[in-house]
């Protein structure tokens, strides 16, 4: 009887954890996979792993643990679902036709494509840094690398993006 009550209480605690953190886990997975359905599969698998392992019950930082599991699960799925990286020449091609580019210009999507084209070692820390409330220390814990390395990689990724973006905008300006 007591075992049944314990089990029910455990289920309730886990359901509360899912309700509390599923959106956060989804964003972590989405930052890596860039696809809603794949990210949801990764979230489900992450919670299932945590439930089976039972590590969530004694975790001090449940967000950190969940982010680590979700990131690992998403990275494991990455080679199967990752689309071909964007051809880096594509933004320049858009700049060749300034009128059409001006109409379709969505800088957010352009930047997103530039981020997707980055090498994984630079893209992943940058992508995780865009997830709410994840600072460089937490990203370092999630990825299992030094915090200094995370900062260096994010800085390097931003530098590359800035250069490419400036080049595109300069090209467009010159065409005008």
């Amino acid at each position, binding site marked *: 009887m007591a075992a049944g009550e314990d089990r029910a209480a455990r289920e309730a605690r886990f359901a509360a954890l899912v309700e509390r953190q*599923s959106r956060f886990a989804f964003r*972590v997975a989405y930052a890596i996979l860039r696809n809603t359905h794949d990210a949801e599969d990764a979230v489900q698998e992450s919670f299932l792993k945590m439930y*089976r392992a039972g590590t969530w019950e004694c975790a001090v930082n449940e967000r950190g643990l969940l982010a680590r599991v979700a990131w690992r699960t998403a990275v494991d799925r990455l080679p199967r679902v990752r689309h071909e990286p964007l051809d880096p020449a594509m933004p320049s091609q858009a700049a060749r036709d300034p009128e059409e580019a001006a109409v379709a210009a969505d800088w957010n999507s352009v*930047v997103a494509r530039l981020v997707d084209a980055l090498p994984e070692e630079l893209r992943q820390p940058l992508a995780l840094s865009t997830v709410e409330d994840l600072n460089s220390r937490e990203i370092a814990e999630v990825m299992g690398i030094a915090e200094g390395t995370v900062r260096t990689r994010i800085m390097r990724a931003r530098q590359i993006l800035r250069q490419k973006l400036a080049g595109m905008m300069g090209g467009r300006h010159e065409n005008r």
Partner: protein
Amino acid sequence: MRIDEPDEVDRILETALAGYSRQEPLVGLDRRVLERIAQARPRRWLGFPRWAVAIPLAACLLVGAFVWMRPRASQKQAAHAPAARPPVPSETGGPETALRSEVRAARNKRRPARGLPKLAEFPARVPVTSEERALLALAREAPEQLRAAFGDQQNKEPEPIRLLEIRIQPLLSDGNQ
């Protein structure tokens, strides 16, 4: 105003990166997660834990294997016991093969048979039966009569064996069958 000013680039970059992972999950993600976990949860079979079925089953299998193995082991022992078989020379084997089989036969002869008690005298002594005792007494008291009786038996000629005549009927068919 120039569009490629550093401030403008940074502003576009920051805005775009802020929205890079800002994607909302489909409605009902919590429910789907919990449903998947419920599906993956191990179910109890008829209210019994699995070990309550698995342990007796394993015990039955163990006993069955033991019972099945035991007569085979005794058969194997019996088959090994009269191992002194005469060497069979192979058709293809040369003198080496024959020699090898002779050595094997000699070794088998030397090896005592397993499972049989070693007797001090062979054949073992058997106590004299009452019929044998009466025959011995008769031989002591009336040896002439006994000799005559056995002599009659030995001198008697055996009756010839009569065999029935075998008749084979000729075949009626024309021989094509």
